[in-house]
């Protein structure tokens, strides 16, 4: 079973990492956040527990600068600007791709050009080469009352029509024991109000209209209810806040390969999100409702007039609307027009990608002032050069992009500021990537080293004034870093294979807003200077064993780098055991056992949100 990273990561002009289903299983990942943690240059902000909020941030730029796409269309939240990746199950995912900077695949929506980094989630496309249907039934169970059955069914209806359907249910109590110290005092307690119950369902339709045309349609549903335990507050364990989330969307994608030289793709999506924040405190009950809709259309035309030189023109339109039950809701609506012109050149020794994105945003509100119209041009250029005939490349890239202020930044109660400018980022990356299948005893070995320099300007931060906070463009951050990625595979003996991966990240992200401030050149909040991960898998005919490790050095829970704000470094070790039983007619049963956080330390990623100690999971997958 080959589980190496695809060679795309070596030939890419900007850092790109991919993970296929086999590797996800090998690493023991149960949800998207688990898998993403193994990518380098990325941090997952985790509030602990099964139902907790988890967001992805590329190179400490923040979750709002990282796009998340699901089968080619971005998932967006105009209210908070960040995507909670804990809602995506891995059971029907076949591929995860992380791009830092700009991807070389220019046949994409314009929105995919519009972020500093992007995480692409691709679901399984059914393969009917051996039989006309597939069934996969999975059951996960684990500590803290976790039960998660799921079902994936695909069926070929005719030569041109096939469908796949996915459904899952997840519940957990989530109230794990934890230990935390307040000076000399040991807090030995249990999280409370951490339960979660969610339903997920997805249906995909694949239509082959002709030899050149294809249509894909998707319907998606997500419904969850969870308790919000909040952070640990000294001497007060009371927590009663509940969160209800409902998300429904439908997306359609049409692709036409006119010829070898011309292609067209068009997508449309409608998204409806509703959430309810309920709290019952001694001061009374608060019950806030939020509703967002998005209508999205995109078309991309691609052409390769000369072999190796291709162009694309992408045009996106998005309409976003937010309504809340909060006081003085302004009911903002936003019209976004994105146009991306890109070109890609590829030869045996050299490849380059250049793109120019034009963004135009206009907003309306029912009451108060709307943000002024915004128009910006964002360029990107990246190159890759292979000097020799074997797999060793050098790469360099530059990307200038921004993120718009979210509806919260602009219009939330009194704190919002409709005059906010976008937060802009400039990234420079220089690196080298090497891969080989012929070195020493390795079946496969790849190594990449990238050095980068990022600058964030007009960072949107909340600034306190007398009695009220205000959102302002007041931050400047300068980041210098290095990402090292290693992956390899070797045969130890017949039927015994060893696979390993390792990442190391150095990241110095400093606040350079005000030279006279106490925060000058302080490492920004929650950003470790050193972090890394590793995995070692032994495949054999009996039981496959994987050992995983994750490490982060000290970091600070507040902006000022003083000892009282320091969070200890942590190491998270885990072990996975798995075996697949196979029968005739392609039936199989895969059993996996995970022992997570072997060190049993309640480390914190976000201060006062302790992670669960040692816990276990078992997963059974039956495939037909």
């Amino acid at each position, binding site marked *: 079973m080959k589980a190496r990273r695809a060679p795309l990561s070596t030939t890419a002009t900007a850092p790109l990492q991919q993970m296929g289903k086999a590797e996800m299983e090998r690493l023991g990942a149960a949800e998207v956040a688990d898998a993403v943690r193994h990518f380098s240059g990325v941090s997952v902000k985790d509030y602990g527990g099964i139902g907790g909020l988890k967001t992805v941030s590329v190179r400490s730029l923040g979750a709002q600068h990282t796009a998340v796409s699901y089968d080619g269309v971005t998932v967006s939240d105009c209210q908070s600007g960040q995507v909670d990746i804990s809602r995506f199950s891995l059971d029907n995912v076949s591929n995860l791709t992380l791009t830092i900077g700009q991807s070389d695949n220019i046949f994409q929506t314009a929105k995919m050009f519009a972020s500093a980094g992007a995480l692409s989630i691709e679901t399984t496309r059914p393969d009917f080469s051996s039989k006309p249907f597939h069934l996969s039934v999975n059951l996960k169970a684990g500590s803290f009352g976790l039960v998660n059955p799921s079902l994936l069914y695909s069926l070929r209806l005719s030569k041109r029509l096939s469908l796949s359907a996915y459904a899952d249910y997840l519940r957990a109590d989530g109230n794990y024991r934890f230990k935390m*110290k*307040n*000076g*000399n*005092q040991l807090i030995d307690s249990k999280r409370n109000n951490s339960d979660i119950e969610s339903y997920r369902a997805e249906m995909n339709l694949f239509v082959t209209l002709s030899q050149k045309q294809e249509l894909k349609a998707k319907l998606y549903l997500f419904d969850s209810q969870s308790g919000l335990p*909040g*952070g*640990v*507050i*000294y*001497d*007060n364990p*009371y927590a*009663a806040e509940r969160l209800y989330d409902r998300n429904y969307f439908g997306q359609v994608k049409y692709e036409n390969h006119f010829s070898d030289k011309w292609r067209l793709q068009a997508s449309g999506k409608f998204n409806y999100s509703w959430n309810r924040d309920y709290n*019952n*405190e*001694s*001061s009374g009950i608060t019950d806030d409702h939020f509703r967002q809709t998005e209508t999205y259309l995109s078309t991309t035309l691609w052409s390769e007039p000369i072999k190796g030189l291709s162009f694309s023109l992408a045009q996106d339109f998005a309409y976003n609307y937010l309504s809340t039950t909060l*006081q003085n809701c302004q009911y903002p609506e936003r019209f976004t027009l994105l146009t991306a012109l890109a070109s890609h050149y590829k030869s045996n020794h050299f490849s380059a990608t250049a793109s120019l994105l034009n963004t135009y945003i206009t907003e309306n509100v029912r009451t108060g002032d709307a943000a002024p119209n915004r128009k910006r041009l964002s360029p990107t250029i990246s190159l890759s050069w292979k000097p020799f005939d074997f797999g060793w490349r050098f790469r360099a890239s530059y990307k200038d992009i921004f993120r718009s202020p979210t509806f919260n930044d602009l219009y939330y109660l*009194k704190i919002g500021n409709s005059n906010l400018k976008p937060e802009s980022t400039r990234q420079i990356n220089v690196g080298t990537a090497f891969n080989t299948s012929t070195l020493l*005893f390795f079946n496969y070995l790849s190594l990449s080293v990238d050095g980068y320099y990022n600058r964030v300007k007009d960072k949107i*931060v909340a*600034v*306190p*004034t*007398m*009695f*009220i906070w*205000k959102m302002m463009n007041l931050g400047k951050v300068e980041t210098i870093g290095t990402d090292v990625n290693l992956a390899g595979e*070797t045969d*130890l*003996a*017949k039927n*015994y294979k*060893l696979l*390993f991966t*390792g990442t190391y990240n150095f990241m110095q992200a400093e606040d350079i807003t005000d030279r006279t*401030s*106490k*925060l000058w050149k302080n490492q920004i909040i929650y950003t470790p200077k050193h972090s*890394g991960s*590793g995995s*070692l898998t032994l495949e054999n005919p009996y039981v496959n064993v994987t050992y995983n*490790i994750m*490490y982060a*050095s000290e970091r600070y*829970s*507040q*902006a*000022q780098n*003083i000892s*009282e704000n320091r969070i*200890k*470094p*942590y*190491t998270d*070790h885990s072990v996975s055991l798995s075996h697949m039983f196979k029968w005739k007619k392609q039936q199989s049963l895969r059993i996996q056992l995970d022992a997570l956080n072997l060190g049993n*330390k309640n480390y914190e990623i976000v*201060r*006062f949100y302790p992670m669960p100690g040692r816990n276990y999971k078992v997963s059974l997958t039956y495939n037909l």
Partner: protein
Amino acid sequence: MKMYWYKTTLIALTLTMFSACSNDNDEPDNGLNPIETTAPGAYIVNTGNWDANNASIQWYDLTKATLSSDLYEAANGKKIGDAQDLCVYGSKVYITGSTSAKIEVVSSKNFTILKTIPLSNESGQAITPRYMTATGGNVYFTAYDGTVSKLDTTSLSITGTVQVGGYPEALTNANGKLYVNLSDYNWDSTGKQIAVINLSTFTKVKELDVILNPYDECMTGDDGKVYFVSTGHSDGNPPHTLQCIDPETDEVTSLCTASKIAKKGNKIYFIHSEYSTDDKQIGVYDLETKKTSDFINYSDISNPGSIDVDPVSGDVYISSQLSKALNEVYIYGSDGTFKKKIETGYYTTRVRFRYK
């Protein structure tokens, strides 16, 4: 079965270097080291950031002009959580922890805990205490469940509760009554009264109509009158206004625009800072002449957040609530001459003087 051990060892060794990096041996605790707080001095109350458990209380020794570290942590080996208000009464110091849902009673000598009083209602919900005032052997505190409670300072137990409604904030006592700010916490323009509680019956006797949103300033001056500030919705309409109540007649009069106040004799030192306008001033209101004058330049201090005056020397202490960094307190003479700047903790909101 041939095992290539050297390959395995090489790779395993490379990867174990990650696990060697963490050293979880905490430094051994040094034991408790209470700081003796000899009067005269001032307690600097650092309320702490939201949900960050980083409140602290420091002691500024007025004789030596030195500032201590966190008194609570030094005496008790742990951090307090959050500290909303601090009240010195008799030989004890009382501190309300709003999000920690408790009242801490500590010794005024060295801040060792005498009693920690957790606050919850019959349904087991945490109660959020806010501000305090003390008189007649009791400390009275407001809470967000709309109550004012009476804490007996001898038994250190709660002996009574009165419902005043709404979100009561700062309060004070004068002429045998409690005057309680009923704030407009929800910004729905319903919070514009002061509740009056008769101390002998411990019942609410009336509500006084005042300017919208009386909030965190409510004090009894050395002249026996009640001075409080209403902050409206911070949009300049109404502006932040200092008002006075005569506790004999319960008549309310407006004095001048102000956001935070401190009184000594005929002078009320104030910070005025409106959110929606450029009205910013650090000045003095003279109760005799009824005129306002500048005290220092507003721009000399970054985000001035609180003002207090030494009742003996007349020195004025103004906090600089720096965003995300440790705050500072600027000390001025009564004539406005700059004396000293000290670095305090997170979100400094009050300075309480102790001369005994």
